[in-house]
């Protein structure tokens, strides 16, 4: 009991800050969602029946699912290199994982824009090589959004996967090898199943993170591939419809909280299956 009191005193300022910065505004949004423009659940009904908003929800889910699969697959390969590669491969992988953290999300989105746009690197190379006559539409659509988001999220997928790989007892792999199992069998039947909890953790983490993405889809989607966060922004700043924006925010919050709860249950040791 005294322990708890002590930690509360120490954590107090942080809790107050969190309450002021997150919970109070969220309560405000919750209030807007049921009071603007008139009291009631009308905005929720509207949000869940408006085909435009539903299509944004649907697109967000689709993009996030694709991004999750791509990030986790790529993250698995990167983690393999990081954990099992030679010393040079290890160092290079480490640099490639950590350097992106120092570059702002804005810079990275514009970087992809300059690579993928009609006059960008990819299109000018392909045109120069005579492979295409017209530039390919690589950006200002879902494709560009998926590329940018996947690039951003791969490092986040790497950490849980690498930690699962590090906890694999090397002797288990040796045992499989000693029984005559080839590399492919050891990977598919032993190593991959043993690292699956890390893969699931990474997938949930990336998915939850990706749902709220704003800057990357706004820039690389060019307004044509709007995701939920951008929709909320538009409904607040461009077509003032605060009640609806608030209702969509609350729906988004609930969805994320649900996935987070799932993530926490997966990550809690002892509860692991």
């Amino acid at each position, binding site marked *: 009991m005294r322990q708890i009191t002590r930690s509360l005193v120490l954590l107090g300022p942080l809790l107050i800050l969190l309450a002021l910065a997150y919970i109070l505004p969220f309560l405000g949004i919750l209030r807007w969602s049921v009071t603007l423009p008139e009291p009631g659940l009308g905005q929720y009904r509207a949000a869940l029946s408006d085909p435009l908003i539903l299509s944004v929800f649907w697109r967000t889910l689709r993009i996030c699912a694709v991004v999750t699969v791509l990030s986790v697959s790529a993250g698995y390969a990167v983690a393999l290199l990081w954990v099992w590669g030679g010393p040079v491969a290890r160092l290079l992988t480490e640099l490639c994982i950590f350097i992106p953290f120092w570059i702002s999300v804005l810079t990275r989105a514009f970087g992809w824009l300059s690579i993928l746009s009609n006059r960008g690197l990819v299109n000018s190379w392909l045109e120069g090589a005579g492979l295409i006559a017209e530039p390919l539409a690589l950006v200002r659509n879902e494709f560009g959004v998926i590329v940018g988001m996947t690039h951003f999220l791969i490092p986040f997928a790497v950490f849980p996967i690498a930690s699962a790989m590090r906890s694999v*007892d090397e*002797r*288990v792999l*040796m*045992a*499989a*090898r*000693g*029984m*005559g*199992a080839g590399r492919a*069998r050891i990977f598919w*039947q*032993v190593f991959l*199943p*043993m690292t*699956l909890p890390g893969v699931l953790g990474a997938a949930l983490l990336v998915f939850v993170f990706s749902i709220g993405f704003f800057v990357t889809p706004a820039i690389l989607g060019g307004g044509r591939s709007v995701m939920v966060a951008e929709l909320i922004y538009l409904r607040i700043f461009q077509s003032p419809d605060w009640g609806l924006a608030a209702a969509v925010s609350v729906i988004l919050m609930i969805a994320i909280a649900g996935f987070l709860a799932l993530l926490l249950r997966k990550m809690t040791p002892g509860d692991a299956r």
Partner: protein
Amino acid sequence: MPTPQAAELTARSIRKEFGEFVALDDVSLTIGRGAFVTLLGPSGSGKTTFLMVLAGFLPPTAGEVHQDGRDITALPPEARGFGMVFQGYALFPHMTVAENIAFPLKVSRRSGAEIRRRVAEMIEMVGLSGHGHKRPAALSGGQQQRVALARALACEPAVLLLDEPFSALDKNLRGQMQDEVRRLHREIGTTFVFVTHDQSEALALSSTVAIFDHGRLQQAGGPQEVYERPANRFVAEFLGDINILPISGAEAQGGVGHGRFEGRAIRASCGAAGATAALAVRPEHMRLELGEPAGGNAIPLSVTDLTYMGAETRLHLVSGGGTPVILSVPTAAMPAAVTPGAAVWAAWAEDRGFFL
């Protein structure tokens, strides 16, 4: 079921270096067909490294490994087909007991019916009936150990290698598993190489004990031979308590060594090595006497302490010159007069002492 062909393994002058560090130095050992050999030594003495060289997981820096006279040094572990029980079991955590045991059978492409039959047979043999559907995490340490044994034996290996299989088990369970392994060895008749750092386990289980220290093979021989005729002081002390008496003027004559311990004449049979300045006698090979015995080896001592250990009592004694001596006496035969401070004699037969 075809009886497996037990193999003979020979290590010739094995050397293994990790960078600058020499983990194995000139180790030569013959492991007979169907033998039960234990590799015994303190932690870090190179036992696991030697086992890994035998299994083929580690290439030796120098030296050769032969199986039935054939050089297999360059053969990878999967081509050797030995069974192996790793330290910490190394079970597949995501597979059930039955799946763990079936894995090596699937790898060697046995038919589905044969795999099922063999898995059931192995589960029965190691006494895990009814546990086939469980994951390793749901089993006790002893049960996990049985799964590891069953998995290693499923393909009827010519050699079974075990790395400290019981070090994580408590004492009772360990004794039980030792009996089990001895029974399996008798039933299957394959060659067993068993690593342990527990000397009583090594003496109890094996036909040959190979004692390692600092990457060198110190001695290999039957349990009684290494215990009663240790090749050097390390072996003598590692295998159990031993009294070491400094001897002056030691010299050998016709297989018998003579010398003096604090002035008293001492005799001991000695081999080709001759007599040295240190005579070793095991505590249980010394007799407690209240007065000076008529003949034979005997030294006067005073009691410093007694330790009651149930069936036996350990006497801690010291000589006039300050040499500590330990004696172990059956508690039932313990004279009441022996209390701390009492003067007593320790006597032993000529063939019970040996020069180190």
